[in-house]
């Protein structure tokens, strides 16, 4: 069995941390000694984070309800807290795992430290720290707008988490969205919301959409017998519109209730913007490239 691995990326600024399914890019900005201490704290936290999750994995794969269950690990608690806020429909804490790991790692880095900016990018689900007056750019790839598709997050904005979900990604989706990107107060909330909005972008009963039982694809999935999308055939424009509107209704509901700040939904070349997530209405050239990543704003 392999232990956690932490290496510098070739640029010598960012740390790459990998342990099993957790794959992080971590970067901090500030006084050199603060950055170094933050990296040391992050590395220490990373050593145990996966092992702690695995100890409670069986319970984390069971559905949440609006009443959060007690978990002993801090990351597991974040997952349950985030999932339970959305638990009027089926959701397990696993919907928040990537975002919660990002949040927990960011919190470990910040404890007792004074950093200008920092982020933890867990495979596209990103937790952000901004000191007063600071800002960070996040680029949403594949929107076909080149540099214009960058959104700037400022310290005074409430959003500190970005997450993306879709059936083409690493996790299963019940819906057909190519990608849904959500901005929320933390990465855990963004992660759950992106999963559930992407699930809602759907056209039930259409033959063009191929679905399989999750458990036949992955025996220990938290989704059990539920049908997950494995292929999306050609869709008519009105079908794309219908599917996106279903997702948008869910996104708007979450935004009104203060669960998320903004969302962008993509399907087959069309998109919907909820709460002004996109600088301008954008249509992706190649949604399969969809990915979000952050970079510091040097300006």
């Amino acid at each position, binding site marked *: *069995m*392999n*232990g956690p691995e932490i290496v510098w990326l070739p640029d010598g600024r960012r740390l790459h941390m990998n342990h*099993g399914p957790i794959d992080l890019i971590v970067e901090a900005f500030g006084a050199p000694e603060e950055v170094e201490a933050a990296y040391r704290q992050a*590395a220490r936290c990373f050593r145990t984070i*996966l092992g702690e999750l*695995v100890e409670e994995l069986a319970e984390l794969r069971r559905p949440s309800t609006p009443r959060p269950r007690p978990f002993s690990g801090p990351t597991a608690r974040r997952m349950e807290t985030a999932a339970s806020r959305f638990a009027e429909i089926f959701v397990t804490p696993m919907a928040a795992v990537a975002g919660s790991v990002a949040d927990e790692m960011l919190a470990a880095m910040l404890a007792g430290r004074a950093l200008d900016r920092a982020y933890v990018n867990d495979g596209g689900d990103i937790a952000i720290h901004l000191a007063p007056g600071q800002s960070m750019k996040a680029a949403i790839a594949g929107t076909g707008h080149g540099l214009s598709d960058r959104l700037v997050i400022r310290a005074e904005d409430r959003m500190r988490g970005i997450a993306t979900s879709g059936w083409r990604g690493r996790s299963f989706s019940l819906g057909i969205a190519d990608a849904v990107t959500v901005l929320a107060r933390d990465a855990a909330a963004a992660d759950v919301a992106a999963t559930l909005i992407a699930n809602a972008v759907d056209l039930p009963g259409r033959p063009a959409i191929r679905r399989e039982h999750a458990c036949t694809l*992955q*025996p220990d999935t938290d989704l059990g017998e539920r049908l997950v999308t494995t292929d999306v055939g050609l869709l008519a424009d009105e079908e794309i519109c219908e599917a996106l509107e279903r997702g948008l209704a869910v996104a708007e509901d979450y935004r009104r209730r203060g669960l998320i700040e903004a969302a962008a939904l993509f399907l087959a070349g069309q998109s919907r913007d909820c709460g002004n997530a996109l600088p301008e209405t954008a249509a992706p050239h190649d949604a399969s490239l969809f990915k979000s990543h952050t970079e510091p704003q040097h300006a």
Partner: protein
Amino acid sequence: MSELSERFETHDPGEKKVAEKIRCDACPVMCYIAEGRTGACDRYGNVGGRIVRCDPLTILEHAEETGGAVTPFLAEGEDWNGELVRSGRRFVSGIGAGTTYPDYKPAPFIVSQEVEGVDLVTVVTEGIFSYCGAKVKIDTDRHLGDETAAVRAEGEVIGHVSTAEYGSQMLSLGGVHHLTGGSKAEGRATCDALLSLCNKQPVELTIDGGVNVVVQAGKAPIIDGKPEHRMRVGCGSATIGMFATQWKDLVDEVVVVDDHITGVVSEHQAGKVLGWQDTGIKILGRRSTPGRYFKVSEPGLGWGGTTISDPLQILGEWNPKKGARPGLSLLMVSTTGEQFAYFELDDDLKPVGKPFPERLRKSVDLIEDNCEAALCTVLFVGGAGGSLRAGVTENPVNLTRSVHGLQTYVTVGGAPVYVWPGGGIMLMVDVMRTPDNAFGYVPTPALVAPIEFTLRRDDYERLGGYVSEICTVEDIIAHGGEYLNPRRGAGAPGINPWPPLGYLRHAPGRL
């Protein structure tokens, strides 16, 4: 490495392949993976009912002559195109080799190589060491904690402070009682700390009643948040002996402050020989022999490894009958040269701090220059036990006898080892000589370390080795062996001899 976990699983051996799902043990998640799918990480998959590991088998490239830098012949992640890019000396290391289960199956790789006309065989495997530990030598004068004090990682006891060796502080970590004999949390903390130490990563340790120290092989220790730089040049008395001539005629008195022995030049034999005059100084400590004092202070993080921050606190009244006089000059310096101060006696014979004179600068710098760097070294200690040996020969004790008889040369990831005399194959290896990330773990908890046994092919046959399993390095590069391992080239650490040559030097009489 899917075979590895079987022996730690409590379910029936047959259960694993039910409905073509297999359990991956590349990480603690231990996904069940359906045929043709990958696990949660997307990197390990079930191909034809077998976990295909993406941890590559590491083939080390040794420079023609040891000591030089080597370039890896194949970058990680690149596809092997089947061509030999370099004609250098290759060695199939145990890193990523996996192991076999049950034990009586031959080791994953048994590799033949001809070296200087001698047919050699290297048996390559990964050993699971649930009885293993690390001996940590910390070159520092700082008092880290009392002998036998518990050493903790993540709050769990993982070892203790051992007897100091020469000038260094020693920690003895791990071992079966901490790894598998205590609570689950203790075992996990021990395994995590050992794994990080062996993979040359930093580990934060706290010593009961002592300090907090960050230990990393090949790096200076960080003690209570402060990186250490040097060790003392010697004790205070030795420092006087080394540098007394440097101070003659430049200063009236020199006190070298040290945790162990504090030296006074005017009283010390080295000063006397040079005709040093008495100064009427009084040291508050236990006098050993002239000019040498024990216990001027408790061990600590101040001057010369004491608790002293103001050196004057170790001085008593100055005695005018024995030479004390106004204007008498005094240098006080620690045994690392990092702390120093200059004083002159006033009319009441009280020492008063003065700007440090240029003329003494050279002697203080000289002390600092002569100090060894503060450094942590980590030796992995493990036993190649009965089960592992069975993968090498049909009669395991033959391997032990062969190792002790110098017929078999043992390496860990290609790094030479010291085999402790006596029973079993108990080996020690400097982790700095192993390739990066050579160590892994299983949740038992236990460390997984590469191990290779190199011996003459005819000796191997006589030992009862698995002759029919012998293959060449080229075979392995082309096919990857039974476990479908990807292959990865890496430069061997430059200080290691190519193991087959190491064998020839190790057992010259055998040729």
